[in-house]
């Protein structure tokens, strides 16, 4: 059941890895240096962290028939808050908590606009998307706020058991949220709200609180992503941190086979979608094509994956195979008589 759901994403990822390996033969090489795993695949796991983290929250938001355009900006705000706290000497734990709190507040703002005020999610989150970068710039005073704090930098470039910390972060977040959704009733209640909010509310589902909660979750995921990116470059770049990443996150959710119309969702499939996107990005860099081709190649590959996953194509394919089988059988029948 689970395997059947994520089979298209697994196949796409495997095919993509094969393609990249053809262009860059060393893609699957992994070595062990100074207690850390090194290799392109490890880079994919590490570099894919921001989009993967965003995709976890975005999956929940999209399941409620919403969208969160503000996650890239929220990353910048949370990174700026963390860097500011570190640079002002608050210490590691308060910095992380402040950053998460900023993400939670950003999510709460979006959630209230969507669930209580009743603004369309696209417009509601667009407000923070536009406004948020200004907030982040106010915090960093318009420059790249750099800091030197090995403890915080660990979240960007440290390793645990050989694996980069950002990879651990998204693996644990993804697994934790996925388990929470399926082991509690949250998954079903979110799906019900996304499919038919009115009917769910009449059945006693607290749709308003659920809606706010998914936007808060998305904000917290964005905060984690912002911490990773900021820790990685040891500085908060309010102008560029998380820029356009909301689109990659939405793309990851869609490649993961989740409908933008809400309802049934799979966090695991969305994470595979994020890995697919990062494999494309890393593959392009390793292949050494001129920069002008980056976006064209990425767009073409994404298009191919989405077309192959489209339900209509799948249905056509099944019909075609059935007709082939039928004609083969008819042929066999005829030859027998």
């Amino acid at each position, binding site marked *: 059941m689970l395997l059947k759901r994520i089979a298209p994403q697994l196949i796409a990822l495997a095919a993509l890895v094969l393609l990249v390996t053809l262009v860059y033969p060393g893609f699957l090489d992994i070595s062990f240096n100074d207690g850390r795993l090194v290799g392109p695949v490890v880079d994919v796991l590490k570099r894919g962290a921001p989009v993967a983290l965003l995709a976890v929250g975005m999956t929940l938001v999209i399941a409620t028939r919403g969208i969160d355009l503000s996650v890239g900006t929220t990353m910048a705000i949370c990174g700026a808050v963390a860097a500011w706290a570190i640079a002002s000497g608050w210490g590691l734990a308060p910095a992380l908590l402040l950053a998460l709190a900023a993400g939670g507040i950003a999510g709460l703002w979006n959630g209230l606009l969507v669930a209580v005020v009743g603004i369309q999610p696209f417009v509601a989150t667009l407000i923070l998307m536009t406004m948020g970068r200004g907030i982040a710039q106010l915090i960093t005073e318009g420059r790249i706020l750099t800091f030197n704090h090995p403890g915080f930098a660990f979240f960007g470039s440290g390793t645990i058991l050989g694996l980069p910390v950002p990879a651990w972060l998204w693996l644990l977040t993804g697994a934790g949220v996925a388990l929470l959704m399926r082991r509690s009733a949250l998954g079903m*209640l979110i799906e019900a709200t996304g499919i038919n909010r009115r*009917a769910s*509310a*009449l059945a006693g589902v607290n749709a308003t609180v659920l809606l706010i909660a998914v936007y808060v979750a998305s904000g917290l995921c964005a905060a984690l992503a912002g911490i990773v990116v900021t820790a990685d470059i040891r500085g908060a770049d309010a102008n560029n941190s998380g820029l356009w990443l909301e689109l990659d996150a939405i793309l990851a959710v869609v490649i993961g086979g989740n409908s933008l119309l809400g*309802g049934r969702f799979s966090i695991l499939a969305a994470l595979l979608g994020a890995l697919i996107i990062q494999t494309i990005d890393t593959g392009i860099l390793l292949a050494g094509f001129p920069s002008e081709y980056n976006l064209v190649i990425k767009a073409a590959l994404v298009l191919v994956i989405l077309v192959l996953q489209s339900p209509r194509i799948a249905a056509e394919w099944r019909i075609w195979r059935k007709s082939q089988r039928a004609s083969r059988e008819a042929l066999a029948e005829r030859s027998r008589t």
Partner: protein
Amino acid sequence: MLLSIRSLTKTFPGTLALDGVDFDLATGEVHALLGENGAGKSTLIKCLTGAYHRDGGTVALDGAEIAPRSTVEAQELGIGTVYQEVNLLPNLTVAQNLMFGREPRRFGLINTRAMRAEAREMLRQYGLELDVDRDLGNYSVAIQQIIAIARAVALSGKVLILDEPTASLDAREVEMVFDVVRGLRERGLGIVFVSHFLDQVFELTDRVTVLRNGRKIVTERTADLDRMSLIEHMLGRALEEEVEQQGAGKAAATHPDLLHFEGVGRHGVIEPFDLTIGQGEVVGLAGLLGSGRTESAELIFGVRPAQTGSARDEKGALDLKSPRAAIAAGFGFAPEDRKTDGIVADLSIRENIVLGLQAQRGWARPIPRAEQNRLAEDYIRRLDIRTSGREKPVGDLSGGNQQKVVLARWLAMNPRFLILDEPTRGIDVGAHAEILRLIHDLTGAGMSVLVISSEIEELVAVSDRVIVLRDRRHVAELRGERVAPDAIMRAIARDGTGDGETARCC
């Protein structure tokens, strides 16, 4: 016959919207098409105007079979439609609206002078002298409605369908529009008139056809009908024998009071009303469409917040500010529109059944899967839900089975008070009787039920007591032997409210 419809059939997933409907329209006739919500009026009209494509039956215009694929095609064939909301462009001039899409041209350019002249001539036929260069939005709704009619007649010219054309007009304006319609009748057009204002039907129309539950109930000359019999046709009289029998053995049993509602109301929605519900009692709400039946239920269940009034049970006051609060008080509500308010289409039958119970327990205490399966299997068997398995999406079921799933959701929560809004609408006869039997069984087990229905016989069959609503007010309460079709219909038709016993007006 100008227009002749035979055995028209149209199905939607889960519902049979039109079931072998016949309908005739003669030249020079105004023919009223009546029925409650969901009776099939708008489906019939959409099949004529090309918005829907029929599944079965024939439609013949002037003896030739037609199957329009779009409103434009229907217009070209000769069928024009005017809706309640004026379907024109208020920021264009009267002339532009009248001639839109067929402007007189000279050298490829619009000939404004000819256009104005033609528009003026068109309106003169309707007794209107207007400045055709003014924007349409400057004129009253009635004038706009007449202009819309003029345009529709000019475009089509054989059949004119008027879908609730008078709903937003005052009495004087209605007269203006009626004069125009009468003029068109004299010119030999066939006119289909859809309205729920019975006075207007009697004033204007030559014949009446009543639809109910997708079936044609009757076609008669308007002059041969009276108000009572028309309401009877619309709300239904004859019902299955089985139901009749269920109702027959009912005595005027006494029910200890369970819930009291006092002065519950909301401005513009329903006048404040009092309502007492007894334990194990079935209370029916009767009234025509728009009389405030559903609105009463929505206020009680907290779907819309009540502005006035209070509710209490034997333990004290109840706060009914939201559906969650009502559920916490032990209420349940199976709404009228299953598709938008009842089922969660993409979820499975199992998930739909446990949804309410799960929401009540909270997200942190999931119902174990084995328990969910047991509940689902139990209700699939008890309510005879016809499906190939509990994991099927509920959207794939037929209307009657969807209704049973919504009922199962509430029954799983074991409410003490269940509100059923049109529980049998759009479902087949078999399921119909089953649901009525179920209501009987539930009240036998001590549950209180409030039933809203457009079918009077159905109300009579299940109810211990019937409240009649008219014009957003609770106008009468019938109990004991008075719970009978005639008495209910008289109360609805403003007849017999002076009767001492029934006039417990609120």
